[in-house]
């Protein structure tokens, strides 16, 4: 009988309930989108941030950092770095070997780097000219270029002890950091000048922190490379975590506001229903309806609005999340397996909570109204 009453009531009040369900659908869509985005936003945001530099430095065990790189001495074997490819959180790394060279007759920090790897991790660097592509090309810091009077296309002589090489300046780099006063050369050139073939002094690692801390990633690297110490750059990690946390908080606040509005819409629809169905409720009570049966009718309305709105909202939210994934992160978001149950639970819970006050109003209706003709 309850089902017959609900079916009849819903058919009779389909427009009002439709509006309430639509409100709940919008709220649920936001919730669903946010659950799916929140699941992926950490890794997606992290991936975006990874284009802005390393967050872990690898040094030979026992070495310390100097302004230009590591203290000279025992290095890292370049071939050992292949082990980094087996760590899922590591999205990129750039090995380097620094030395203080004689450049055009002046002492200057020269860094041997793998340009393709460095470029992938240095999206914000401004390069005038081009990134070096040939084995005899170099990238010169803008301050160094100014003091040496060099420009892209000029030749540059680099010496270290007795070794000498001549390279072509492919471009000038401006980072606002130490690189502005350095010359970056192909790693094999630096290794040859230093007489340390196959050795690097420092590796910048870019690691995703979604799902695990930077310290854990550093631990995983050290486990695979026992002769290396991995130093997390805490300020980067904290900034990243802070950005991700803020994005999540923003999404949660938006969801809360939208759900609050949906709850108001459902609550007002239910309250209007109680006012409009005053005589009907009075009749039910006059016929001997127990309070729980009257409450069940209205709570079933709430559950219906929440469940239908939740289901529709989940589907709509998936679409919204996919759109945001494409537009903002240029990536396909994976649906969160918790999305459907959580969206349904939130939508139904909010609709039920919004129904509590109207239900209390319904239960307070005096059955005597039915005979008084009110």
């Amino acid at each position: 009988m309850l089902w017959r009453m609900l079916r009849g009531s819903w058919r009779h009040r389909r427009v009002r309930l439709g509006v309430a369900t639509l409100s709940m659908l919008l709220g649920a869509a936001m919730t669903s989108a946010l659950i799916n985005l929140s699941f992926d936003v950490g890794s997606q945001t992290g991936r975006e941030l990874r284009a802005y530099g390393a967050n872990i430095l690898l040094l030979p065990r026992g070495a310390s950092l100097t302004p230009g790189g590591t203290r000279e001495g025992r290095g890292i074997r370049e071939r050992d770095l292949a082990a980094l490819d087996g760590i899922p959180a590591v999205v990129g790394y750039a090995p380097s070997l620094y030395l203080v060279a004689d450049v055009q007759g002046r002492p200057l920090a020269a860094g041997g780097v793998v340009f393709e790897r460095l470029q992938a991790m240095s999206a914000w660097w401004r390069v005038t000219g081009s990134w070096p592509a040939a084995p005899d090309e170099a990238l010169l810091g803008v301050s160094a270029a100014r003091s040496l009077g060099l420009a892209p296309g000029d030749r540059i002589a680099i010496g270290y002890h007795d070794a000498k090489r001549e390279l072509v300046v492919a471009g000038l780099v401006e980072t606002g950091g130490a690189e502005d006063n350095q010359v970056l050369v192909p790693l094999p050139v630096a290794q040859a000048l230093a007489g340390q073939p196959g050795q690097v002094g420092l590796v910048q690692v870019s690691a995703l922190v979604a799902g695990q801390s930077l310290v854990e990633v550093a631990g995983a690297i050290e486990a695979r490379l026992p002769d290396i110490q991995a130093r997390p750059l805490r300020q980067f990690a904290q900034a990243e975590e802070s950005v991700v946390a803020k994005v999540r908080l923003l999404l949660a606040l938006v969801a809360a506001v939208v759900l609050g509005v949906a709850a108001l819409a459902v609550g007002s629809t239910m309250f209007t229903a109680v006012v409009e169905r005053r005589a009907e409720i009075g009749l039910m009570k006059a016929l001997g309806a127990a309070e729980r049966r009257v409450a069940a009718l209205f709570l079933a309305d709430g559950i219906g609005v929440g469940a239908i709105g939740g289901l529709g909202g989940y589907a709509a939210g998936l679409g919204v999340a996919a759109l945001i994934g494409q537009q903002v992160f240029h990536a396909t978001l994976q649906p969160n397996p918790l999305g459907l149950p959580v969206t349904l639970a939130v939508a139904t819970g909010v609709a039920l909570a919004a129904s509590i006050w109207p239900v209390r109003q319904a239960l307070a209706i005096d059955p005597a109204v039915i005979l008084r003709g009110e």
Partner: protein
Amino acid sequence: MMSAVVRAEGLTKRYNGRVHALAGVDLTVARGEWLGVMGPSGSGKTTLLNLIGCLDRPSAGRLLIAGDDVTTLSQAELVRFRRNHIGLIFQQFHLIPYLTALENVMLAQYFHSLADEAEARVALERVGLGERLHHLPAQLSGGEQQRVCIARALINQPSLILADEPTGNLDQANEERVMDLLRELHAAGHALIVVTHDPAIGDLADRLIYLDHGRVVREQGLRPLAGGALVR
């Protein structure tokens, strides 16, 4: 003396502590008796029906229905008592607009215990609506709606049927039909309390009381009850 289905002693209802809607009414209704209640608007007829129907509580006095003192019952017990003992017929029918005639009758069963479609069908056939079971109230005439209301009042076999102006919204033909049904109920042994402005309906009662300003101002025994007793 026949056993009483309703016994009211000093039944009083005050609103806001001062306005006396009912002022110390003493009343007894025997099993199988038809009591008519008449009086001008505001005389306390509906208040009396509300109290006897357990829809409201008296401010003072005692009220026994089917032997139980309903003034001592809790709210939940009062609801339970109402669905077990009272059948209500309204002037404005009060059918649920989105339920069919059959479902409206089943609603009273559902609130009482379990909805039984076959039983509800028989009740509607009894009031001559066997062909209109699946019609919505809006598809029924006023007389037909009132007959659905009567079937609903009867479905749980109450000890007492209360009717508030049962023909007030009906044309002559439908009024006759409803009056016939009330006669049938009476003949079947149901106790009836019928509030009416219509002397023709009042004349059908075994006994008629007149209310004014919340008091019984006149009582008129129209015919003896079965067994010859004239109940006061």
